[in-house]
């Protein structure tokens, strides 16, 4: 019997012009691992929320949803709460109580579980998820990854049969995200729990899915095994193709022969096999033009030391680097290594106790208040929401500049003209990011600092964002970006720096930088390094593949 059976589900929000879900039919078998993907606003979340009565949105609905053969509305609330687990996007807001142990028990308390069983279940879950060490902690002292793991554990304590996850890792850094996704995979394999998950970052989960469902404008446009879905999206020339894992993209873009690889390992074998009896004529992408003679740096950081408190360890230790004017300078590095602190130091929120920061050749200390942020420097914070303080976007932008034409021009650049009258919180993540950027740009900065700008964005929005950055660069704005998103940096940055242990270890062009690294590099590079050199993007690898096998560039 199917676990979930959705038949002809159509749903329309009140006052919406189009239905958010249109004739969706879907069957999820017991124990399946289903990956649901689609662009932002394609109806993924709306669909997931229909799988649990208490979360169902209000609106016009037709069609049927059956859980274990029973129509969902006839399944008691108690059973739904226990059997259908739901993990949401925001790790913070989902947590109800202040202590880790209490949060783990919260669901069980609601179900009226007797104390003895509850103790056992909580102990079991804490051990399974490795929570024992922080069992007595306050929730507010946990990291984002720990919080999301706690959310998962507190739902697993109710022993659900189905686990539904709505973009669970969009707020996490890549390492925490892949830990989290591995745990979900482990639950699926070891406990046989059915998993339905939506994700932007498909690289980690695509290959292990039993079924991939692709949604577009409220419709299911593909529902099949990962390989077949890849093929289908390629043949349709669908925008979602850009979101697929690198090996799949390389395979189709290079018109390769054989079976489509899904993981880096499969990609390597596929490339090795293809070039086994074939000489490699072109081994690396066309060399980047030699750097022009260095321009005056827009930003220069000299031997900066910083720590938050007198007794705490140094966050920045002898940090020095220079950013050439007009470039897109990316800083990559592990979590908590001090990248965000670097940005805060540059804009004067954190004051170094040794060393200097020079912006446009003038030390930070020499700037008068306000002067620095007028036609000078501006930072886009990690969470764009922290910039919005008004009821509509238009008012928010008006706060920065009274010049209506300037506002209109910036809105045009950031592609948010249509959104100006909405409440900032009603926008999607990608739209919020661009709206926040618009607000920042109204200070007319010459040096723009971006803190994790691609966090939680889908591939489509990332491309849009990159386009905007390019446009800004053409206008002569220097951009410094701190990011975990290796793929994004490889594709769009001019210079990439590795941040480690409070300082910058090395700076180079993306090809040389990622070409040298063997772990901290793009999937395309990891998969192709066995045959090519310095190929860092899917496009690089595909071009080299074709150049070698077909003899044309």
């Amino acid at each position, binding site marked *: 019997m199917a676990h979930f059976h959705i038949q002809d589900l159509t749903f329309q929000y009140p006052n919406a012009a189009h239905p958010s879900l249109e004739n969706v039919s879907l069957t999820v078998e017991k124990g399946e691992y289903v990956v649901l993907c689609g662009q932002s606003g394609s109806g993924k979340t709306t669909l997931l929320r229909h799988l649990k009565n208490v979360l169902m949105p209000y609106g016009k609905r037709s069609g049927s949803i059956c859980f274990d053969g029973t129509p969902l509305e006839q399944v008691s609330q108690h059973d739904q*709460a226990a059997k259908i687990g739901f993990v949401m996007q*925001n790790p913070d807001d*989902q947590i109800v109580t*202040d202590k880790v142990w209490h949060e783990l028990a919260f669901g069980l308390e609601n179900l009226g579980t007797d104390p003895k069983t509850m103790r056992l279940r909580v102990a079991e879950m804490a051990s399974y998820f490795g929570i024992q060490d922080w069992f007595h902690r306050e929730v507010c002292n946990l990291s984002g990854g720990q919080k999301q793991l706690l959310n998962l554990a507190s739902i697993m304590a109710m022993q659900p049969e189905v686990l539904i996850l709505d973009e669970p890792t969009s707020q996490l*850094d890549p390492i925490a995200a892949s830990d989290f996704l591995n745990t979900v995979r482990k639950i699926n394999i070891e406990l046989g729990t059915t998993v339905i998950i939506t994700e932007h970052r498909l690289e980690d989960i695509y290959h292990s899915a039993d079924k991939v469902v692709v949604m577009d404008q409220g419709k299911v446009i593909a529902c099949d095994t990962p390989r077949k879905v890849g093929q289908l999206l390629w043949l349709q020339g669908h925008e979602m193709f850009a979101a697929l894992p690198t090996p799949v993209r390389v395979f189709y873009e290079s018109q390769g022969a054989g079976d489509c690889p899904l993981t880096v390992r499969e990609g390597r074998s596929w490339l090795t096999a293809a070039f086994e009896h074939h000489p490699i004529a072109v081994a690396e992408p066309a060399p980047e033009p030699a750097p022009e003679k260095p321009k005056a740096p827009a930003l220069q950081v000299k031997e900066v030391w910083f720590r938050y408190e007198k007794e705490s360890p140094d966050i920045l230790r002898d940090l020095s680097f220079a950013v050439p004017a007009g470039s897109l300078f990316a800083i990559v590095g592990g979590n908590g290594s001090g990248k965000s602190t670097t940005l805060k130091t540059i804009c004067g929120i954190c004051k170094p106790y040794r060393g200097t920061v020079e912006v446009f050749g003038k030390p930070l200390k020499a700037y008068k208040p*306000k002067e*620095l942020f007028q036609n000078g420097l501006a930072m886009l914070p990690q969470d764009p929401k922290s910039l*919005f*303080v008004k009821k509509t976007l238009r008012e928010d932008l008006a706060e920065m500049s009274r010049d209506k034409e300037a506002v209109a021009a910036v809105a045009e650049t950031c592609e948010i003209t249509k959104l100006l009258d909405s409440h900032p919180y009603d926008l999607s993540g990608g739209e919020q990011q661009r709206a926040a950027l618009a607000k920042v740009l109204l200070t007319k900065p010459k040096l723009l*600092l971006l803190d994790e700008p691609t966090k939680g964005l889908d591939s489509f929005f990332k491309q849009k964002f990159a386009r905007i950055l390019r446009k800004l660069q053409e206008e002569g704005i220097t951009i410094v970006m701190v990011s975990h998103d290796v793929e994004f940096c490889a594709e769009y940055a001019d210079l990439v720096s590795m941040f480690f242990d409070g300082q910058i270890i090395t700076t180079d062009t993306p090809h040389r930088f990622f070409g040298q690294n063997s772990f901290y590099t793009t999937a395309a590079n990891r998969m192709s390094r066995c045959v090519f050199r310095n190929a860092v993007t899917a496009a690089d690898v595909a071009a080299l593949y074709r150049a070698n096998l077909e003899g044309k560039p």
Partner: protein
Amino acid sequence: MRLSAFSGPRKGIFSFMRQDAFSKCHPLTNFVFFVGAIGFSVVFQHPLYLAASCAAGAVYLVLLNGKKSWKLIAGLVPVFFLLSALNPLFNSYGERVLFHVFGKPYTLEALFYGMAIAGIFVAMMLWFNCYSAVLTSDKFVCLFGSLIPALSLLLVMVLRMIPNLMRKARQISDARKSIGKGAGETDNFREKVADGMNILSSLTDWALEGSIVTADSMRARGYGGAKRTSFQIYRMTARDYLLLGFSILLAFIVMFAGGTEATYTPVLYIAPPGWGLAAYCLYLLIPSLLHGKEALQWRISISRI
């Protein structure tokens, strides 16, 4: 999500690692003891009883918080003298007049009475500080959770929200600083107020937005359905019952042994202390003795190794 550099594990989370035997007893045992200690300190105006309460409170506070507590204790000394000296200015009952202030008699009885009141104040300060170190919020919720379940959950959620809001407020103010809109960027008072209002309104929006998600998360986990049970992380052990019984017994002895009477004005009368005072001292020293016993045990077991 790394919202800010402060979102990682904070310094000081290990402060609870200071081992105290009494803190590890069941919240009920803790609570009953503190009700007694604080209650007796308020009721008994007998100087020896007050002195005992202050001394025992100070000892236990030092055992609990270490160096940190010396600051508080040192601060309470001048407060004690100030309060004592002030009382006769407002209260001129009593026989033995020391001198006149603004034409009003400043009497010895009133001065003693002031000292008693100041003693009560000091004892309360000390014991409440011990109370907050021992009976943390989760213990409080554990005690009253079964009596008033909805209220205790509310309390827990508020406790969760406060650090969250603080962090978000800092985040917003940092974000505004980095686009040149920070409160520190202007000397204009009106702009400063306006900026504060902006942050407040944004914070409210943020909290409301978050509370929708929290409500969803609660309902999704079956809140509001069946009768709630509550998870007890603490268990009454034999030692807890023993301690509880012992402290109640001592409390009864203190109450019925007498010798606690003291009046200051208009006539000074202080009852001669008896067995009651000994019982009282023992009562107040329960947590400290427990602490000392455990510390000694460790000393001995270490020396054996």
